[in-house]
């Protein structure tokens, strides 16, 4: 055990953890909007809209995140047309490519979570709203969405933790996040166990915090 290395690498790893958190929070926020949009599309009665949303979530859940990042980072740059548009400003940055991939990926999982939450809402609640003379738009925004969000909290908590682990793949496209820095230290010092313990503890600590925040929210918004 090289304690000195562990202590010396801690500040570097902690500042890299901030990048991990930044990647995580930005992609979760974008992913939540994508997820909500596609969950609503999934519930649409139009078969084309419905199928489109289904295929989206199937493809992104059925392929590894690594492939998705590589397609966006290495693949899209190949299209000449894209290089001439303003999108290139975003797509040439590995940071934004990673965020796009993460957001699309978590969006697919989130859409499934929200869809099943929408489907488990008891019809009686919607009928109760209707019998009170509330328009269906307001029923949707004021009744269905809040209930669905509460219903999906436990599953969404898992998704946040899975996504936090997913952000480690950003290190494959040259971003120095927690895993990227850990790998760099390992490959320069050849002390994998020590670095793994420090970096792993930081990840576990973040998991612990996320887990408890979700638990707190679940309690706060519980029905009884």
């Amino acid at each position, binding site marked *: 055990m090289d304690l000195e290395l562990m202590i010396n690498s801690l500040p570097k790893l902690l500042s890299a953890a901030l990048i991990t958190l930044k990647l995580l929070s930005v992609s979760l926020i974008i992913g939540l909007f994508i997820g909500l949009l596609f969950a609503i599309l999934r519930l649409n009665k139009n078969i084309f809209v419905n199928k489109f949303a289904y295929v989206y979530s199937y493809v992104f859940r059925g392929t590894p995140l690594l492939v998705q990042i590589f*397609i966006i980072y290495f693949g899209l740059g190949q299209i000449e047309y894209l290089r001439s548009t303003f999108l290139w400003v975003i797509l040439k940055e590995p940071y934004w490519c990673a965020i796009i991939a993460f957001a699309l990926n978590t969006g697919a999982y989130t859409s499934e979570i929200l869809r099943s939450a929408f489907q488990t809402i008891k019809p009686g609640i919607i009928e109760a709203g209707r019998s009170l003379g509330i328009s269906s738009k307001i029923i949707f925004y004021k009744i269905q969405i809040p209930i669905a969000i509460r219903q999906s909290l436990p599953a969404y908590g898992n998704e946040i933790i899975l996504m936090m682990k997913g952000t480690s793949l950003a290190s494959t496209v040259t971003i120095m996040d927690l895993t990227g820095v850990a790998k760099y230290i390992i490959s320069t010092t050849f002390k994998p166990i020590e670095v*793994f313990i420090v970096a792993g503890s930081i990840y*576990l600590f973040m998991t612990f915090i996320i887990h408890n925040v979700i638990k707190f929210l679940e309690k706060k918004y519980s029905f009884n």
Partner: protein
Amino acid sequence: MELLAFGKTGWGDELFIATLMTIAVSITAMIIGFFFALIFTPLKLSKNKFFNFIGNSYTTVIRGVPELLVIYLFFFGGTGAVMYVASIFGYNEYIEINAFITGAFAIGIISGAYSTEVFRGAIQSIDKGQFEAAKTLGLNKFGQFFKIILPQTLRLAIPNLSNVWQITLKDTSLISVTGLVEIMRQSYIAAGSTRDPLFFYSFAAVLYLLLTFLSMKIINRLELKYSRGY
């Protein structure tokens, strides 16, 4: 299309072999994971606090740390660990561990943590009466577990194990960082030498989709088989 031709002109045969490699690594990792689950599920269910702690630490740590970090640990640490053990026995030459074994082991440990959780949940959801009934039938401990509890556990576990399989299958793409030539690595090589990453990575995505789709079909069959009579 000529990029996918078999033989020397295209990448078809290479990608085909890489796909077989992905399947082989996934199955090996899944089996290694089952062994881990076999050890850690009883620990998690144990009433002994110490055993319980070990079981919980395994699943918590592995499920809370990114897969890539675990793979780096094995990739950089595996050789050192084996050489250290060998040096105790007086063997001091350099030993190189096969990328397949390192990768399958790393993914296996991750897959094992998920399998442990699945088996724990399945065993806990079996009615207490079943354990008692097994005892009343006069079966010995072995018979109780293998004839009564395990078949019921499998029925409950298969849907969740299919999720673990999907996770394991997708996680094998991460082994490409260690140089094992599976789908992802082969696509990386092909993309590099043809300068056509969009095509090859998209094709890799299609291959993965195909694998997940086919395995779903097979697992659904298994599920039907094990839920006969329900």
